[in-house]
């Protein structure tokens, strides 16, 4: 059973609907004990880091997510769920879970491309990921696939080995992270059409081993 963590941060139902379409059993829960009993956990989220961390601490879900990660079972972060896995977010100056060393920073304002044209914030729409290395989830999709993004902040892991892929928006930023049994995506696989669904399906079959 896959648990989708409910911490009042949007887009839970779209993840659930995508899994349902794929006939993958799942439940939405705000109960830390149920999370710890799951085979796999998806940590989604849309919203602001400050509110999200407050909700996670209030419910005890912060400790549950950390404990689940350390149990070695597969954990998938999506969007805000990916960002709060790091140590700290510039958004609301928020201390986060610290599962992976690193920070979440905002795109510069103004954000310019190589020709000096202004890039709009949030980074909203479809973009590609340049995969850094092999990973069981990456094998499920063609390398040139595009995914749906909507975000103004992006994750920067301290260690390069945790960057699974980068996306170009003015400059290349880390858009997919991986560390042992954790995979974390800045984009929304549940809103990314066939390649997004393929990633979710691959996660539902992943045993939590990284490629190396």
């Amino acid at each position, binding site marked *: 059973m896959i648990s989708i963590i409910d911490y009042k941060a949007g887009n839970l139902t779209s993840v659930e609907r995508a899994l349902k379409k794929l006939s993958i059993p799942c439940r939405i829960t705000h109960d830390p004990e149920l999370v710890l009993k799951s085979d796999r956990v998806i940590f989604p989220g*849309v919203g602001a880091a400050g509110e999200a961390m407050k909700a996670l601490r209030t419910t005890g879900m912060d400790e549950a997510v950390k404990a689940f990660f350390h149990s070695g079972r597969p954990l998938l972060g999506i969007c805000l769920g990916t960002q709060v896995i790091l140590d700290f977010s510039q958004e609301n100056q928020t201390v986060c879970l610290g599962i992976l060393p690193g920070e979440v920073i905002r795109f510069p304002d103004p954000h310019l491309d190589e020709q000096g044209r202004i890039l*709009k914030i949030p980074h*909203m729409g*479809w*973009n590609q990921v340049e995969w850094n290395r092999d990973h069981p989830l990456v094998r499920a999709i063609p390398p040139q696939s595009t995914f*749906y993004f909507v975000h103004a902040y992006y994750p920067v892991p301290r260690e390069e080995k945790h960057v699974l892929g980068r996306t170009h928006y003015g400059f290349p930023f880390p858009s997919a992270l991986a560390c042992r049994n954790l995979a974390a995506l800045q984009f929304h696989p549940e*809103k990314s059409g066939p390649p997004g669904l393929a990633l979710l399906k691959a996660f539902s079959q992943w045993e939590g081993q990284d490629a190396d």
Partner: protein
Amino acid sequence: MLTKRIIPCLDVRDGKTTKGVRFKNNIDIGDPVEMARFYYEAGADELVFYDITASAEERGIMIEVVRRVAEEIFIPFSVGGGISSLEDMRQVLLAGAEKVSINSAAVKSPALIGEGAQAFGGQCIVLGMDVKKVPAKAPLSSGYEIVIHGGRTFTGIDALWWAREAERLGAGEICLNSIDADGTQKGYEMALTALISDAVSIPVIASGGAGSPEDICQILVQGKADAALIASMTHYGAYTIRQIKDYLKDHGVPVRYIW
């Protein structure tokens, strides 16, 4: 590289899709859930549903359409038409829409933009602007006026001012519809789109007038739009999404292919 989005717009009345020309003479052209799935599989990047009746009693029908669409397609879609309160927004988002589009209600009560952004995140609040060209004189100094009620009521509000104000209030995106061009298939309102796109730092979706892939290419390049809304040109089978994207790609515009 961020791709330019092609967004089919489905007008819905009594649970059926229609497409009018200049908002009049609407005809039924199908089931919105079927059309949504068709466009999803054809490679549309996003969809817009516009509830053109939007009376209180028909609200339930639309919510049901949204719920069924959300079970079938896995790309973002927005819903507009008659949304006038936080509760309306909540219902549509809970039913599975990624974004809500507010138009007349935001003109009457601009605070609704900020309240929606606060409650659900700015990324899901789209300001729909219906615009008509008028003689440029103060206070309508841009020469474009905001109209509401499907183009029937002039508001005296300058379109350029309103776009900036909506961004300040927290809107995440602007869907810019030219009433003059809508349904004509003679091309988008280029000057208006470039004017607004340059003036705000949130994405702008150009709407009204698409008749050919060339029109779309121009509005995305010279018009500086981030996305193009289409309806008639694909609803009746004159073009496919694939043909449009192939044309754009051949002309150097980054587009998304499904796989």
